[in-house]
């Protein structure tokens, strides 16, 4: 069923399942779905070797809409299930799709561990700063003061930053994008897929029903240029209208500041260049947010290390190279034995 039948290269459409998509009209998830289908086509991913695993939430319905293998599991546990899949078969290309509640509320522990272990998979966190599926309660990424059914007077707790958390957990690949950015988003996804090890991608996603426009300060056309910086490894950190602004370290401190370029301002040469392999820089970038600083988008950090599943299988292979592969008798008759004569 759902075998892409087109001869020749697969197109984005070939990655769509036959299921009717059931998000609210206008939900940002549609755009992400499109971006992923395009990424899969670009990479010519084999649907039969690709598995999408999700927890529970609006975001987590994702696997139903793809023609790959899919497992819609339970709330918060997708990273653990995905770890099991990867351990059983490291050949599979595994993607985890999760929401801010799924990943950072109930699933925070598994996210921590899948990242620090560096299991070779892509972890996509659709951050809409709200619980969509359960009808709009605030989430761990909601801004303080969020009024929701469970916080009618406004929420009080400080939100967690997804990217900062991922870095603190030891992730080796941390990126961020936006649902509607249909050029940068597939590029980030492609990078994530290409990276060996756990790739963490936060995708800002608009929930049109319960949290509409919560990212308006970043995505509104009027402010986007000034409120977003698209970081590129090795390139200076510039942004804004006509790329007229840049980031540098406030001299003598560990803080970033915005400088205006061009006549009167410093040249690009004084600006920070993005270095994907610098964890401290990634942490500074991850922490930026409007209005003072632009939101950093793109690959904030990428510094590969051996994947957990890869190492596990190396250790297995080494153990099995003794040539006595799986001889049960050897196992059972080892140790101290004695014979009771007949």
């Amino acid at each position: 069923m759902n075998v892409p039948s087109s001869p020749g290269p697969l197109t984005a459409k070939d990655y769509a399942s036959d299921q009717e998509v059931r998000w609210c009209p206008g939900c940002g998830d549609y755009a992400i779905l499109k971006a992923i289908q395009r990424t899969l086509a670009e990479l010519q991913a084999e649907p039969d070797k690709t598995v999408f695993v999700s927890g529970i939430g609006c975001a987590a319905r994702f696997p139903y809409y793809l023609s790959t293998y899919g497992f819609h599991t339970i709330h918060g546990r997708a990273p653990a299930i995905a770890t099991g899949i990867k351990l059983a078969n490291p050949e599979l290309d595994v993607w985890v799709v999760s929401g801010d509640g799924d990943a950072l509320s109930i699933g925070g522990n598994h996210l921590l561990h899948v990242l620090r272990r560096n299991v070779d998979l892509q972890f996509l966190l659709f951050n809409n700063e709200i619980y969509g599926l359960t009808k709009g309660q605030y989430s761990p990424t909601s801004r303080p003061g969020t009024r929701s059914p469970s916080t009618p007077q406004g929420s009080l707790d400080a939100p967690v930053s997804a990217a900062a958390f991922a870095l603190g957990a030891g992730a080796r690949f941390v990126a961020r994008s936006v649902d509607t950015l249909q050029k940068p988003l597939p590029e980030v996804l492609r990078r994530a897929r290409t990276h060996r090890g756990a790739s963490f991608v936060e995708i800002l996603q608009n929930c049109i029903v319960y949290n509409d426009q919560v990212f308006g300060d970043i995505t509104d056309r009027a402010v986007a240029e000034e409120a977003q910086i698209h970081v590129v490894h090795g390139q200076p950190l510039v942004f804004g209208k006509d790329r007229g602004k840049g980031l540098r370290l406030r001299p003598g401190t560990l803080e970033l500041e915005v400088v205006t370029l061009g006549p009167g301002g410093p040249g690009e040469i004084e600006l920070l260049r993005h270095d994907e392999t610098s964890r401290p820089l990634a942490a500074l970038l991850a922490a930026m947010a409007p209005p003072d600083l632009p939101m950093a988008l793109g690959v904030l950090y990428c510094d590969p290390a051996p994947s957990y599943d890869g190492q596990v299988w190396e250790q297995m292979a080494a153990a099995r190279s003794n040539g006595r592969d799986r001889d049960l008798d050897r196992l059972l008759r080892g140790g101290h034995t004695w014979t009771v004569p007949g």
Partner: protein
Amino acid sequence: MEGSAALEGANSSNRTLESAVVRFAGDSGDGMQLTGSQFTLATALAGNDLATFADFPAEIRAPAGTTFGVSAFQINFGAREILTSGDALDVLVAMNPAALKVNLADIKDGGLVIADAGAFTDKTLRKAGYDTDPLEDGSLAAFRLLKLDVSRLTLEAVKDFGVSKKEGLRCRNIWALGLLYWMFGRKRQATVEWFERKFAARPEIAMANIAALNAGHAFGETAELPAEIASLVVPPAEIAPGLYRNVTGNDTLAWGLVAGAQFAGLNLAFCSYPITPASQVLHVLAKLKDYGVLTFQAEDEIAAVCAAIGASYAGSLGVTSSSGPGIALKTEALGLAVAAELPLVVINSQRAGPSTGMPTKTEQSDLYQAVFGRNADSPLVVLAARSPADCFEVAVEAARLAVTYMTPVMVLSDGYIASASEPWKIPDVDAMPRFPARFETEAAGFQPFRRDPVTLARPWAVPGTPGLAHRIGGLERAEDSGEVSYDAANHQRMTDLRAAKIAGIANDLPEQAVELGEPSGPLAVVGWGSTYGPIYRAVSNLRARGLEVAHIHLRHLSPLPGNLGELLGGFERILVPEMNRGQLVTLLRSAYLLPAEGLNKVTGKPFKIAEIEQAILERLEATQ
């Protein structure tokens, strides 16, 4: 009674016993477990049947000399079949006052106490809470007492080997072992060889230990021991011929899983999180990578079961293991495995609860949790192992049912089985039946929830298989297609099918047999799990006295064997000894409307044979 076979010929110097129970007790640092396992080996080699039990303190390393720091190893061995580690002690070896104090209550009247008098000092007596020295104050009058300054004797024995005083004193236990070897006529050779191997890198330690062993032995031979402490003979038992080794339940469980996966043609993916008394299964399997065994220590129990589910989904035999509190955490995910209909084996090494309870103590109180402990109607298979040796077969059976029926299977072990040991006749694995897993490969007409008409199992279509890409999940699925469905009639059908699949497994089980006795009569004693030994021995003792009582022991608890209701219906009374407040009783009463009654013990300790005998006698009297 097992473990209480009367000492015969108490006056001769060479008495013969049908069986004997010996316990070594001392500080955690005194090497009691090592002593016990060497004694076990020598005993097995001497042809006795035997069973052992290790009792550790809850603390990792409790302060020396305290009562809560006492570590003990008990062995019951005999000239006949041995099924429990013994009700009461014939011999207690007490390496310090605390060891004496903690174990005193378990010694038989007239039993022998061997105490290292050298370790009974003012300080150690105080630590153990003794006001006066029990070796001196007459409080041990009910027993035969052999007080020896084992410490001094050991130091003398090892003084020529260049070991420090501390190292020398560490051989105390081995001196005592030597004495016991003499007493029961054991050969020293295997132990000598073991030391030589073990301390090959430190020959002086090996030699000191061997010297201590020999010295203890020689002491028995030469010292003018009081007449009532004679050397003892426990003649060899009649044991089925074959190759044997001594095993704990955690060993055999682990190996059974390896075998089960092999019989199914699968890799084993064992995903767990440490917890007493289950951890050892992980430890054993972690060393077996060359058997296609992948072990994964997850971040918690939920991750462990989820990783196992993921592994099964991807085509391995996913197994997870824990004890009661950890199993509780897994119950939500077990529901997913039930809904997704994936094979999964869940090991539960039960311990005393509720909550943290007494982690090092045994109990059988997770039967409710196993059968009923999930949200919604979520039937799965529940098996129980009766003894360390039985664990192997039960683990294989769990793998068979999980793979054949695409279902989670819970295996109930317990703290007793996990760390008790007994000789195990190593099976001929080539002769055991295979049950190869069948992965779906046929794309034409593939439907992820179309069931096999006989087993009602759905196909196992593993990611990576060309043409079978499909989506599954925990939302209710349409019959056959597996697509998400909120249809009312479909939910009823799927609920009924899930139940029918599990219930139908009863047809694939052997008929429930009677262990001992006739298939009907005035009284059946029905058990499950580790109560096997004491029930069997109690029933056989009473049957030997001519009483009409039968023993029925269940391996399959969900579903129950198909003929069980009829079988039990043939008895006037049904007595169910359990180490809980009556959980199997609930199952039996509701399934068969038979007036099963419980004999319940919740002390963290196994039943004594005598306790069960007495309960049987009471029931039989009431019947007559």
